[in-house]
């Protein structure tokens, strides 16, 4: 019998469940390795070579190399682990959060200061909120894509 996963219809959201965790095990453990300064140095010196030491899929490696966190999450990454890539790059968590929306960090910060992203239209897939697939990317990336 199929498992009950009622969270699959929440827009712009990937729940890190046992299935995602299984898919992302090596990707997330690679991220964990960046907790050690020596590993950060080796990664920064040659990212591709460092990634090739891990039994990750090519899709996971490309996600890391392009710093596309949404792509990493789709491939089984978890944000608390992925955050260690940002820390290695010297980026703030807010920068990383913004990068997943398409907004610049300034745009994202302004949204948070104005009370954060509204829940309206963002509860179920098929509504019309700003986190819905039809409205991606948001912010500056959206303007650029439209230009």
């Amino acid at each position, binding site marked *: 019998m199929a498992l009950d996963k*009622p*969270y699959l219809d*929440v*827009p*712009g*959201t*990937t*729940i*890190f*469940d*046992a299935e995602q*965790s299984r898919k992302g*095990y090596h990707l*997330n*453990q690679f*991220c*964990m390795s*960046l*907790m050690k300064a020596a590993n950060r140095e080796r990664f920064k010196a040659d990212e591709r070579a460092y990634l090739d030491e891990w039994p990750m899929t090519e899709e996971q490696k490309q996600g890391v190399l392009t710093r596309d*966190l*949404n792509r990493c*999450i789709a491939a089984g990454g*978890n*944000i*608390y*682990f992925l*955050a*260690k890539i940002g*820390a*290695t790059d010297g980026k703030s*968590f*807010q920068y990383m*959060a*913004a990068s*997943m*929306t*398409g907004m610049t960090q300034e745009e*994202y910060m302004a*949204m*948070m*200061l104005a*009370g*954060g*992203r*509204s*829940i309206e239209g*963002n*509860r*179920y897939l098929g509504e019309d909120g700003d*986190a819905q*697939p039809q409205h*991606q*990317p*948001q912010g500056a990336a959206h303007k650029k894509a439209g230009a």
Partner: protein
Amino acid sequence: MARITASVYTSHVPAIGAAIDLGKTQEPYWQPLFKGYEPSKQWMKENTPDVIFLVYNDHATAFSLEMIPTFAIGCAAEFTPADEGWGPRPVPKVIGHPELAAHIAQSVIQDDFDLTIVNRMDVDHGLTVPLSLMCGQPEAWPCPVIPFAVNVVQYPVPSGRRCFNLGKAIRKAVESYDRPLNVQIWGTGGMTHQLQGPRAGLINREWDNAWLDQLIADPEAAAATPHIDYVREAGSEGIELVMWLIARGAMADIDGGPAPTLRHRFYHVPASNTAVGHVILENNV
């Protein structure tokens, strides 16, 4: 006999720790948040317990994906603040209470909650930020702390109901300890936040405040909140709120005692990506 005298609930946003450590608490961005904790620091000075039982979650720091315990109790004599990638926070070492922790583990496991016993563990911002918010920047934390880590990173996380019932078992365990200790239980994490994907930055002020109302006055209803409500309404990381139910379940009114006194309530948006909630409840027994 030991007893639980109060419960404290607070978010544990890492950026709050950084603001304290870097001396930014009086900057316009942070000032309103820290003002909301001034009464709490005063209360903490006047009501310093003998032990804090601190419920929090590890954020891919002590636990990687190698092992994912649902409930882990720290039984060590001390716990070192972790290096989370930016260097360890400049905060005091956390002194444990191995005797009480071992007693609670024994009692709670016999009550059918399968705790993982941890004798060596670094503690991350989930544990140290609440201590900083409540105690400021002392040379040493004012009392021993028992870290209690809950898995809220990989789904399924424990249900609110199970956390609430675990709180009851913890209260029973504390009350069967022979020494006359004053114990506080803290529940941390939340409130609404989502740190991932195109819905990152979600804040649901109305839901948060309705949930706080329930937590205080109708905790059974708060405990009945299903996982999907947290995910949908409070964001994928808002599910950390189940940890508050462990602390709430440990209060005397859950077991037929008098209702607690609401000593302080505070809510603020934003701290970085997150809505900050904070409550102090005192037991009246």
